[in-house]
């Protein structure tokens, strides 16, 4: 630490305190606009850019992590500033947009949501300002027909992630939306096969005849054949392909400890 003048430190500290309360570059910009009592529709870009960059410098001098978003807005401000300096050609482009327009729109929008957030916070919140009776502790679980408590897919994917990470790296197969589209198609085909016992490829495709559905139906069928769940037969080249279940579901007495009605 070198002997920086007291005033300098307190000035910097002032910035630091302020930075802690900013929610991002737009928030900082709104603060500067309010502090300078500026009309948001007519922002003096040079002055605001200067002040904005001064805050960023203060952040850097304090070795605070400077989120990239702050720098992006600095660049935007500098860009607007340079565009403002260009002479306006009144004759040709009379309808040319104010270089600040997009930024102003963004600021107003952000300000509106900031107010909405404040409104939300000013409401009487459950478990903060008022209370209801808590959930009774007796958790009746595993009653076949009781409804299921609201649970989101977020919890489901988290549960899956937990299982995968606990078991180490041997199950890190990437699951993406394509995989899930394929699973969806596989499950639909199995439904159809269980119902009708046999189907042609054309019947599988149904009426939905776009490229995506043809590809997924084909891939799903390959998957089922690879898994030895379905079989496909063709009498001769170019003839209709018939698909069957490899093993009939009926008469399955072994339910692997899981009694059910299927």
């Amino acid at each position, binding site marked *: 630490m070198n002997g920086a003048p007291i005033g300098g430190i307190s000035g910097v500290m002032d910035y630091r305190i302020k930075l802690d309360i900013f929610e991002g570059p737009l928030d900082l910009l709104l603060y500067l606009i309010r502090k300078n009592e500026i009309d948001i529709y007519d922002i003096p870009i040079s002055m605001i850019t200067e002040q904005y960059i001064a805050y960023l410098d203060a952040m850097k001098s304090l070795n605070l992590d400077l989120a990239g978003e702050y720098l992006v807005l600095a660049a935007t401000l500098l860009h607007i500033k340079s565009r403002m300096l260009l002479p306006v050609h009144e004759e040709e482009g009379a309808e040319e*947009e104010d270089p600040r327009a997009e930024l102003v729109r963004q600021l107003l929008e952000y300000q509106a949501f900031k107010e909405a957030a404040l409104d939300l916070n000013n409401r009487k*919140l459950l478990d903060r300002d008022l209370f209801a009776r808590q959930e009774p502790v007796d958790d009746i679980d595993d009653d076949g027909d009781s409804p299921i408590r*609201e649970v989101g897919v977020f919890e489901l994917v988290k549960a899956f992630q937990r299982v995968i990470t606990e078991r180490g790296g041997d199950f890190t197969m990437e699951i993406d939306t394509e995989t899930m589209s394929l699973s969806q198609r596989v499950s639909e085909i199995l439904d159809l096969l269980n119902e009708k016992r046999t189907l042609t490829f054309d019947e599988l495709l149904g009426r939905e005849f776009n490229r995506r559905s043809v590809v997924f139906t084909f891939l799903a069928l390959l998957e089922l054949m690879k898994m030895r769940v379905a079989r496909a037969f063709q009498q001769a080249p170019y003839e209709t392909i018939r698909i069957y279940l490899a093993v009939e579901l009926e008469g399955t007495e072994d339910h692997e400890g899981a009694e059910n009605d299927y």
Partner: protein
Amino acid sequence: MKELKTIIESLLFVSDIPLSIKKMKELLDDVSEADVAAAVRELVDEYSRREGGVFLAEVAGGFQFRTADISTPWILKLRGGRPASLSQAALETLAVVAYRQPVLKSDIEQVRGVDVSAALKGLLEKNLVRVVGRKDVPGRPIMYGTTKRFLEVFGLKDLSELPTLRELNELEEEEPFD
């Protein structure tokens, strides 16, 4: 009808989530929704007139008993925990989700000007925000919306009870740039 009101009061008392008129009608045999609604109304009025430690609030599409403001410090003491509160980042993110739903993460980031991953995750974990589906555009990004729990926590009957966004309307009316 005294009996109906009594039963409804008991049901509302034991339930830990708001009960809708419809749900109560289902539980009670041979009673019309109108009768249930009338009994609930009477209870709401009674508790409101009484100005006691408990009142009946209409939230999240149903009704729920809640405590009076004045008791909050002592309840917190009884429960021995700190009051549940949300950070500014969480509140702003929640506001965007509430007003713009179904909304993409990238839309929220566009509005707030910052990365919202952590805030969004916190809201999902608190069950205030949920995944509502995917948008039918390349990449099929996830869309987010608010939950019933959001209405319950913020004491809203439904989403239409949210105040309108003032400045946005102003902006659209004025059209200062074109």
